[in-house]
Each structure stands twice: as C-alpha cells, then as structure tokens.
C-alpha cells in the first residue's frame, strides 16, 4: 500500500513543473503548445551536457531553464512574426528542437549515473533526504508559479488567453505577453526535463515523446474532477494548480495500480484510457446536471 502511494508520489513529483507549464498554456493562454515535447528534452539535454562538461549543476540547471524559455519564445515568435497557427507553431518548434537537442547533446543519450547533480549529495545520504530535496525544489516552482498567477502579469496572461484582440485594442503589448507566456510554459517543461534526467540517471533524445499528451490529459482530468466544486472566483488560480497536481497524481496512481494487477502491458493503455474516461464521464454528468 505504502509502495503504491510512494511510487505515485515520486513519479508525479518530477512532472509537476511540466503540469504547471501545460496548465499555463492550455488553461490560461488557451493554446495547445506541442513545443513541450521538445523543450522537456532540451532541459534534460542542456543540463546533462553541461554537468558532464564539468559545470556546476546549479549553473547547468539555470542554463536548462533559460534554453527552455528561449524555445518557448521561438514558438511565440513563429506565431507572432510568422503568423503561424499556435498549434502548428508548436509542432514546428518541436520538430526543429529535435535537431537542436541532438546538436546540443552531441549523442542521443547522456549518462548521469556518476555525475554530480542537484540531488546527488542528498540522495547519497538516503532516499528520504533525496526526495525531500526534490520536493523542496518543486515547491519553489509551485510558489513562484502561484505568485505569478496572482500578479499583474498573471492577470494579463489570463486576459490574453481570454481575448487577445481586446487586450491589444486597450493598448497592451500582446507580443510581449505571448513571448512571456510561452517562454514561461517551456521554462517549466525544461525544468521538469532536467529534474527527471537527474532522477532516472540519463538524458535521452526520445524521452519527451508523448509528454504533452500525458500532461494535457492529466490537467483536463484534474480540472473535471475539482473545478465543479470550486465556485468562488478568488480560489480559481489555486484550484487550477491543485487540479494539475490531482490530475498527474491520479494518472500515475491508476498506472501503478493497473501494473500491480499484472495486466498485460499490451492492454495497459487501453484500460488506462477507459478508466480515465470513466472519471471524465462522472465529472461531465455532474456538470450537465448542474
């Protein structure tokens, strides 16, 4: 029982920044940003390459975040300057990032098993301390993200997602908002990639495949479950964050539960999908009734 909960918790933890990033793009900016598949690997790749070159893990982590933000800014630039549809811009960026990631990494896989990382010292003193240090870093991201949502910039980003044209007519710089939004969203995805690489012991060119879809699925799931219960507008930002956590945790909870039932992996995703659909249907029924 504890093993199941621990497995769910540790797996969810590393993907929380990713969920926050997807929450920003999908819920607040109202865009499906496929760049995330690429920027997840970019964060892992930049971090792994720099630490293996002997740079400080802190510097490598900062560089990974910066590169993620640049990738998001590039997607925003494609949308703005290139007049490309947001979904297509994300797909194009993700496409381009494959080559960029390969060029940065120099090889498809970088081993981090014996390289000093942000958490290697803590894990050296035991798993509890190791996971506490991971949770601390994730907690900082969550606090910073919540503060951002409550700030003027956060409100502007929300308004941008609701009606960018109106915001533009009122004299706001929507280009700046678009770049900020997509930059932040991909910064968070890169953070998740860099943290995941440290936990699983390597950065790999293929590790981002499907991350956007898992993240979006989890966010929708969390929101369908939680948001019908939240009526107060001032609780909106907090409940969106909580919905992201619930969604990610529930995804891994179901995945780990099914694994423990010795389900044939061929049918695992089928069952996972059916169970997720059951949760969504329950939520939709409630919404329809209300």
């Amino acid at each position: 029982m504890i093993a199941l909960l621990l497995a769910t918790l540790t797996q969810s933890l590393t993907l929380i920044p990713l969920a926050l990033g997807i929450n920003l793009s999908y819920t607040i900016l109202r865009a499906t940003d496929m760049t995330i598949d690429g920027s997840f690997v970019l964060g892992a790749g930049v971090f792994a390459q720099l630490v293996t070159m002997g740079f400080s893990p802190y510097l490598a982590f900062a560089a990974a975040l910066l590169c993620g933000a640049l990738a998001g800014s590039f997607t925003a630039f494609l949308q703005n300057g290139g007049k490309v549809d947001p979904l297509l811009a994300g797909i194009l960026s993700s496409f381009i990032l494959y080559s960029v990631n390969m060029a940065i990494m120099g090889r498809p896989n970088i081993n981090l098993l014996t390289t000093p990382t942000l958490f290697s010292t803590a894990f050296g003193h035991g798993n509890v301390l190791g996971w506490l240090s991971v949770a601390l870093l994730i907690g900082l991201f969550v606090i910073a993200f919540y503060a951002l949502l409550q700030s003027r910039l956060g409100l502007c980003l929300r308004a941008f997602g609701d009606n960018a044209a109106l915001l533009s007519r009122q004299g706001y710089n929507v280009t700046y908002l678009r770049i900020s939004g997509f930059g932040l969203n991909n910064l968070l995805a890169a953070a998740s990639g860099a943290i995941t690489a440290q936990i699983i012991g390597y950065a790999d060119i293929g590790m981002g495949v499907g991350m956007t879809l898992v993240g979006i699925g989890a966010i929708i799931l969390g929101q369908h479950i939680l948001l019908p219960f939240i009526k107060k507008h001032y609780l909106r930002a907090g409940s969106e964050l909580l919905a992201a956590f619930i969604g990610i945790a529930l995804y891994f909870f179901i995945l780990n539960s099914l694994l423990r039932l010795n389900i044939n992996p061929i049918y695992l995703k089928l069952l996972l999908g059916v169970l997720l659909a059951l949760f969504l249907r329950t939520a939709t029924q409630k919404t329809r009734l209300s």
Partner: protein
Amino acid sequence: MKQVFCYLSLISLLFITGCHDNTPPKTAAPKAIQVGIIIPIEHPAMDEITQGFEDTLSANLKRPVEFQVMRAQGDINLQRSMILQLQSKNIDLFAPIATQTTEMTASMIKDRPIVGLAALLPDSARTNSQLALVDDEITPTQTIQFIHAIYPEKKQFTIVYSNNDKIDPQVKEAVAAGAALGLQINQRMITALPDLYSVSQSLSPQTEGIIVLKDVLVVSGIATLSKAADDKHIPLITSDDGSVQNGAGFALGVKEYQIGVEGAKVALQILQGTPTTDIPVVKMTHLSVFINKKALALQGQDLSAIQKQADLQHYAIVDVTGDRLGAVK
C-alpha cells in the same frame, strides 16, 4: 455527493486491487529467488535474450527461481513504474535489457544487484550501484573488415542507422574503419520508421552494399531495405540473426540467446556471493555468420565467398533461411 461517491468508489477499487498481494502463499519449500527482468520494447531479440537468461539460470541455480518479466512497450513512464513496482516486491536481482533500461534501473535501485543485458555503459557508471554488465556489441571495425574481405572489389557502401545512443558512436567507428580500408561509407540516419522507405528509395546509385548495425529501429523495418537491396542486386549486410531471417543477405553477430546465457552466468556468480565490483564486463566473443540463402540469391550474391571468409576467420556459419522470408517478401 453522488459524484464524490463515484470518485471514491473508483479510487477505492483501484487502491484495494492495486494493493492486493499477488505473490503466491508461503509454503514449506525453500524461498524462491525472485528475478525481475525489464524489457523496454517488444522485439523478438529481447525475447531470445530473456529465454537464454531464464533457461540458464533455472538450470544452474540450486534453488527455485521465479522470474517477473515486465514489458515497458517503449514508454519511459511505464518503465519507471515497473522498476518501482519490482523494487517494492523485494526482487533479489534485476535484469534490465538494453542500455537505457539499465541506466534507469541503476539510477533507481542502489541496494540490490543488477545485471544489465545487452548494455553498454562506461565503467564509472558501476561505482554507485551493484551493477554488472553484458556488452553484446561487436566492434564495427570487425564487421567492416569482414565485409571488405568478402568484397575486396567494392568501394562504396551505405550505412543506415537510427538516432540511438549505442549506434551513433559505432557508425563513426564504422566510417573510420572503412576509410582506413579505402572504402567510402555513406551515412543515412532515420529518426522514425517511416523515414526508412525514403532512405531506401534515395540510395546513391554508386552504392554497392547496405550495412545495418545492431539497431532495433532499423531492423524492425528490414523488409524495406531488403526490397531495395533485391531491386539493386546489392548485398544487405546486418549484425543480428533476426534481420537475416527477415530478408538480409548475411550478418556477422552474436546469438541473442547467448547474451541471455552469459547474463545468467553473471547472475549466478552474484547470487553465489561474488560482489558485482569483482565481475568484469562480459564481452561477447563467439561470433557467427548468419546467412539467408534465399535473400542472397535475390540480391545476386555469391554464398561461397562468404563461406570462405567465415572459415578463414573461424566464424561459425548459421543458416537461418526460413519461412519468415516468405512472409515479408
């Protein structure tokens, strides 16, 4: 309220079933050794490695042994869940297959021995975990020298490979080995299986042969390259028996089953008390030449030249011409 009840029912059901102990009831028989095998992706080669490992360990271990085989279907999240699940089940020994899977297992499991099968990792990776390795790679230089010995008149080949952590440095080595022998080796990389058809249709007209290293992605689409080789009447040379069964002309490689056998020997040493640090990385030294007579005939190649060089270099010849060729043609 009804909704809350529904959610709680679903979660409780999963929780109760997920926490259900699937292990068999305790009996008076000696406790079985629990071995967890992690397979990253569905592939016949992975099954052969697993079979060799299970057969050898079961036959030689003096105690009963139970294998828990986990198949991650190429999903990194699923693979992580599976390793965590095995960890919670008090597995005595982990046997991940392939480099990435071994890296992930070594990063997550520090307190139990791991035998990485078909895994290539630097020695430094073994310092913080109980990791032993069976390296299945033969050097690409050997392959290129063997090809050159068979076809001394051919000067230009194309190597088709995927963007894989193990393959990338091997391709560089193969190109360098070719250059040393005066061969031009053109490189064609694929990032996904659909790219293979485009590559097969855009081979240089001067190419006199197609080379494939031990590359799971390319091998899974070997029929596409086999068709191109048949059309051009050039040899398709690979590095594993499965691809030869499926249409390649010949391969210099090791038997996948044997990788499992070598891994089981390492596992036996560990279970008998030898520390993993005292076990050197196992290299596969028994090379075989796998041939497919039907494919060689379609590609217009002479079998006798291959046999002659295999004999000269003391490689065993294994004829794997089978029914599967008919299925893919």
